[in-house]
């Protein structure tokens, strides 16, 4: 696993004075800040693999903030977004939050609100990343199953008892029991229901959650 990277705050505002003032404020809280003047440089400069968050002015010269948020999402950048605006534009705030913006702050910010917002955003990002890492681990374990074990897992998820599984696969009940205990071990499941939860969280089995 790569060494954990330092989280980055990506600040986007077309006003150079605002950029330097807000950067300084964030740096006094020991955040790492990268400032951008427009949407294109953000799209070019943000690395999805590095933890961080976005502080985004809703009106940018080349693209509005909401479009940029969508564009980033489509490129796999799932960082939390804190919008900032000098307009006090309520409809836009509603749309931004509906599209997953974490916060919508009006300039000028009250003492601490921006810093709180950024801290919250970074925590969420860290949580999301941790969750994602866990998921990757489960997927990895899933891949380590033998084809037979995988078959048994599928039948289990269908809710079949050992006897039926043994008959379907044309093996003894005892063999099914052995596969099943290996499977539990490999997946790190503590109980059958835990196993079901882990498996259903995986990409290959996600469709089983939807009712037929």
């Amino acid at each position, binding site marked *: 696993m790569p060494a954990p990277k330092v989280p980055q705050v990506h600040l986007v505002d077309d*006003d150079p*004075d*605002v950029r*330097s*003032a*807000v950067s*300084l*404020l964030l*740096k*006094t*809280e020991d955040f790492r800040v990268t400032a951008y003047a427009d949407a294109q440089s953000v799209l070019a400069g943000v690395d999805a693999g590095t933890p961080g968050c976005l502080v985004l002015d809703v009106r940018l*010269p080349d693209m509005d903030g909401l479009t940029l948020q969508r564009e980033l999402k489509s490129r796999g950048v799932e960082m939390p977004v804190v919008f*900032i605006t*000098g*307009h*006090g534009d309520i409809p836009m705030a509603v749309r931004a939050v509906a599209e997953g913006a974490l916060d919508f702050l*009006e*300039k*000028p*910010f*009250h*003492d*601490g609100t*921006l810093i709180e917002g950024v801290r919250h955003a970074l925590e969420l990002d860290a949580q999301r990343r941790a969750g994602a890492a866990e998921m990757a681990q489960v997927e990895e374990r899933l891949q380590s199953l033998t084809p037979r074990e995988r078959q048994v897992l599928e039948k289990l998820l269908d809710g079949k008892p050992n006897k039926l599984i043994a008959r379907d696969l044309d093996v003894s009940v005892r063999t099914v029991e052995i596969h099943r205990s290996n499977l539990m071990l490999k997946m790190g499941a503590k109980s059958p229901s835990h196993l079901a939860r882990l498996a259903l969280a995986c990409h290959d089995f996600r469709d089983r959650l939807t009712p037929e």
Partner: protein
Amino acid sequence: MATAPIRLSERSFSASARPAWLWLAGRSAMLVALYYAVALWGLVFTPDAHGIPLVWPATGVGLAFVYLYGWSLLPALGIAAGLVTWRFTGTMMPLPEAIGTVGATLAGIALGARALHHFGFSPRFERLRDVGLLLLVGGLAASGLAATVGAWGIAVGTETLRFSDTWWLCWMADLMGLMLITPVLMTWLGAPMVRPAEHTYTKGAMLIGALGLVSLVVYSGQLSAPLAMPLSYAVFPLIMLAALRCPVQVTTTLMLAAGTIALSGTGWGLGPFADMGLGKSLLSLNAQLGLLVLTGLVLSALRGEREAAEARARQHLEELARAGRLSTLGELSAGLAHELNQPLCVLTSYAQASKRLLERGQLDALRDALIQLDAGAHRAAETVRQMRAFAAGQSPERVAIAPTDLLKPVLDLLQPEFRRCKVELDRSIPPRLPRVRVAPVQVEQVLMNLLRNALEALEGRSGARIQLWVDRTGRELAITVRDNGPGIPPGRLASLFDPFATWKEGGMGLGLSISRSLVESHGGQLTAANVPEGGAEFRFTLPMEDARART
């Protein structure tokens, strides 16, 4: 604020009733001297044996002084009237009668002055009613009483004259004298000198010269009567010109001069009116002089009324324009709030950062942050200043200003709107343009209005573009705003500048109407046209600074 207030506070009747004794003594001496002098002059011209003067300006002098300075001058007036009575009737008149004569004169004048105050007479002669009031009050109260006394005094001593005839002649002499002298005294002593825009000293001097020359020629006795009589009317156009173009003081003085020369000439037996005999000559000359004074005063008053109406119209336009600016600012407020919130965000961010840097003892970084904070505060203050300058307070005083300085504040103020509407501004302003003499805030308003109309027409259109250029044509500077929007609907072009002609949602339809009035008040023109390639073009002209006489 209008530069020429319509009315100044006038001398209060009661306030002048308690002047310092020196001032009172001065005015009293002036009144006695003047009263005595004009009586002396009037009595030189008594062409018949009964001693009825051609003109008796003494009553008019008394009326002017008592009206202007109040009751406190009545004692002086009594002395003056007494002196005159004693000097010219001497022992002929018994003391009780002499006292009665003086008393009646005083009463007539006091009553006249009181009536003038009561009816709100203004010695500036800027309204027709002032002219009417003076004639009415002068004719009824002052001259009426004075003439009764005079006629009685004369008729008592002679059997050949009937009282009614004498009264008629005395009344006319009194009223004529009053019409000649009172306006002069009142305008010089009681009204500020207001120079009309067209007035020049050369013009005034030429008028005085021409009038003096004409009068001297007519009353020199060198011309035959058939020529002298019609020529005596040459003073009319001169007085009319003075009334229309000169301060009212000049007009009243010219009338007095013309009257003095005519009466003196006639009194000495010279000029076209001399050969008619007392009754006829007096009647004839006084009729002419009366008409002359009436013409001069009525024209002055009409000019005054017109000027007052113009001043009111200017004031209304200015108020309307200011309301327009305020509403514009209201409509721009979203953009301006952003313009203010940006620097405020900078300020608060630096302030919050400074606090943290101070807590950490990072003094160098703190110092830099504070310097930045200071600079940001100035930027915010500049934005506020621009808004204020546009909205209010600034006087519509005309100054010589370079066109670039007129355009910059408007473009600065509209910058957020241009950004918001995504409209490109293409400006072409040649350097070293001559200056124009304008009220900057009003021209800025016109520009603001034209640019905002263009922005509105362009909103939501791709490739939107406004061209703004300045060029000079002859002695004028032209500013043009052209957009590539949908243009003006052909049916609207004719009524575009009419008030309330709007087709915009929520618009009052006053913007262009006010703009045209503002441009025209500067001596320019505002025109609108559609461009063949599509879009509308608004163009207004302003006279260059040196091309226009200062007003």
